[in-house]
């Protein structure tokens, strides 16, 4: 026991005292925020194809009035009467494309063709489809005798508020968007942490082996103690970093919310909540990738002010549900499953590090270890976010290789204590089993130099 502590102390102190660690602890959150800000900026600002496109239009159905009100960045020209020369012009690049609408039926415009020399993007196709569909719809309204202004005023809006009824009979405002966001962010952190700190354990084991330190150490420490000290020491480094981030984040959140509370009055908050919900429903559709959402996104970016407006509304909308979240449960689930998942995976990583002789041999063993982790992350992104209480989400939040990630996504939505206990129990059992197996590989791996180990060797060491 004392030796585990001596190893633990060394692993922890050498890492925490490292300048890179200190700098990264403060820099990583900034980099992360910067990374997402940049992604969002690029997606909204420069994701569009902003070339002006000249397109021939064959207006076979004069009722559609296709040559009026072209979509943004499109210049429409009447097509030459014979289709051969229209196609020849497209091919020679005189025009970007030729849009040929043959259909005369307004209810379903079926035979419309878009001829281009380059394959159009999905966005381009959807934009044009929506544009034609809108035109057709508007013509149908016009047939009923409605004017354009009347049509807009007939569009209804809806705001659905969600409230949660707890067992004590309290009714609280809830936000599934916020919960998804928090769950996903925590799952992402676990995913990254397991990779970063797991490979730290692996490199540490490899360093001792390649620098030939390990034989000196195992003459006074049992290989199991060495491995456990290492795994726990690195875990403590991870937790230290995590606590530092929480402190930073809480500081930031308090700073920002203080700013918001001072500037907003009650009335405007109420309005903001309404428009915020509308904005967010649109965003959700966009994520699903439906055709309608793409045009919605296009419309939003057409009015640059709208985006910024929506964002500040969203922040305001979250203030109340933010205070209603089961913080204690979320945080304790996160910590328990983070530690459990890390311990499980890092024991694999330690075994790999002890078996190989050089970095380049790592790859063949990493694959089967990282696969379940990546799989868990994919499950978390898809199934667990859409249906946190569904059968799939429940199944994968029980399987120990994926549960650390999937369970954390489910946690903000409220998971029954019995499920949490079962899942965590399974995780701990698997972890104990894996540490035992890994230590058997470790024990032999660290003293085996020479040829590159194979899966067969590892199996032999296990027995």
């Amino acid at each position, binding site marked *: 026991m004392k030796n585990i502590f001596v190893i633990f102390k060394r692993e922890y102190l050498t890492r925490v005292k490292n300048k890179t660690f200190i700098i990264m602890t403060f820099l990583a959150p900034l980099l992360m925020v910067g990374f997402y800000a940049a992604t969002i900026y690029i997606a909204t600002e420069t994701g569009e194809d902003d070339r002006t496109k000249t397109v021939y239009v064959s207006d076979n159905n004069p009722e559609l009035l296709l040559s009026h009100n072209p979509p943004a960045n499109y210049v429409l020209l009447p097509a030459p009467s014979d289709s051969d020369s229209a196609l020849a012009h497209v091919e020679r690049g005189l025009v970007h494309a030729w849009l040929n609408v043959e259909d005369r039926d307004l209810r379903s415009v079926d035979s419309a063709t878009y001829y281009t020399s380059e394959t159009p993007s999905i966005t381009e196709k959807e934009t044009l489809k929506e544009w034609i569909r809108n035109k057709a719809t508007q013509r149908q309204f016009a047939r009923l005798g409605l004017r354009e202004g009347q049509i807009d005023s007939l569009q209804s809006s809806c705001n659905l508020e969600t409230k949660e009824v707890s067992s004590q009979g309290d009714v609280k405002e809830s936000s599934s968007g916020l919960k998804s966001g928090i769950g996903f962010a925590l799952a992402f952190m676990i995913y990254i942490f397991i990779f970063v700190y797991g490979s730290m354990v692996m490199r540490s084991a490899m*360093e001792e082996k390649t*620098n030939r*330190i390990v*034989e*000196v150490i*195992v*003459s006074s420490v049992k290989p199991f103690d060495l491995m456990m000290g290492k795994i726990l020491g690195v875990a403590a480094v991870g937790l230290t970093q995590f606590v530092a981030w929480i402190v930073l984040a809480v500081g930031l959140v308090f700073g920002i919310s203080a700013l918001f509370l001072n500037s907003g009055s009650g009335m405007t908050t109420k309005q903001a909540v309404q428009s915020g919900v509308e904005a967010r429903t649109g965003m959700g559709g966009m994520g699903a990738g439906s055709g309608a959402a793409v045009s919605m996104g296009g419309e939003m970016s057409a009015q640059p002010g709208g985006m910024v407006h929506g964002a500040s509304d969203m922040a305001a909308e979250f203030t109340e549900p933010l205070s209603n979240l089961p913080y204690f449960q979320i945080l304790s689930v996160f910590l328990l499953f983070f530690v459990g998942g890390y311990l499980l995976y890092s024991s694999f990583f330690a075994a790999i590090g002890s078996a190989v002789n050089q970095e380049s041999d790592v790859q063949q063993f990493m694959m089967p270890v990282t696969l379940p982790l990546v799989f868990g992350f994919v499950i978390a992104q898809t199934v667990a976010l859409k249906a946190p209480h569904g059968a799939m989400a429940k199944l994968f939040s029980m399987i120990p290789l994926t549960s650390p990630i999937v369970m954390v996504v489910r946690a903000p939505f409220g998971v029954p204590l019995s499920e949490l206990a079962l899942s965590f129990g399974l995780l701990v059992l698997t972890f104990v089993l894996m540490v035992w197996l890994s230590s058997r590989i470790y024990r*032999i791996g660290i003293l*085996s130099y020479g040829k590159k180990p194979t899966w067969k060797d590892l199996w032999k060491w296990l027995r």
Partner: protein
Amino acid sequence: MSPVIQAIDVCKTFGEQRVSKNIHLSVPQGSIYGLLGPNGAGKTTLIRMLSTITQPDSGEILFNGEPLKEIHAQQMGYMPEERGLYKKMTVAEQLLFFAELRGLSNKDAKASVKHWLQRLEMMDWARKKVEEISKGMAQKVQFVSCVLHNPQLLILDEPFSGFDPVNADLIKDLIIELKNQGTSIIFSTHRMDNVESLCDRLAIIHQGEKVLDGGVSEIRRDHFTGIFEVGFNQMVDWDLSRNSLPAETLISMQNQSDGKVVYRFQTSDSFTPEQLLKLAMTKGNLVHFSENIPSIHEIFVNTVSKSAEPIAGATKAAEPFVMF
């Protein structure tokens, strides 16, 4: 005196290969014990068993008369042939870590580190990282790391390999100093240069078997060949047949650069060293007469080449590092 460590009928097999075959050995307290053998003889395997890193398949190892357990590792110092240090740690941190691993309290560890750094005049280097100090300096740190806890038994696997001559001499002096303080020392080597001056006892291991064991002077006496050297200032006419001596009695003649001529004779019961000396004295300017005692090197080569199988070869590949 009772042995500090004792191996009784120890066997170890890796896969098909028997690396230690029924080894018996006994290291007296306060002695320096040399384990000799060509590369791949099984020295490292034996040493790993003595230092609790691996366990024998059969047989027993006793430490101060008790069956060897992991707890005994606290009273041992071990410097493996494959050795290294943490590059990113400072000299002092590193030594402190090793001292604590060997069971010293933080306070004792600090005192010991200070003592040794002062002893080797390395205080100025204590705060330097290992990657910043010279290789020779790192070698000293390496040696100190195994003696910090004042072990009862110090096990050194090929301690002089990789050390420059100046450091090798320093290590040699330290080994003798530790011995005088009562530490028992086992070291393995495949080079014979240091054996005669250092060891009290030695064992020769060849292909997993102990082929020779004993005190250094006894071994040499046992291998006494009866060869004597007689030196003159000029060539001498021995005229062996007139003294009714067979021609084989005179083994060789050597003209040395300083003009001396040295003859080597094989003595026996029928031609004793006294008779050789008397004969030599009749030949004039006798300047040198000595018994030709075989060096450990010669004994080693003789013993190893005499054993049934040929030497495994000088390559390290013969030594199995993989442990099943």
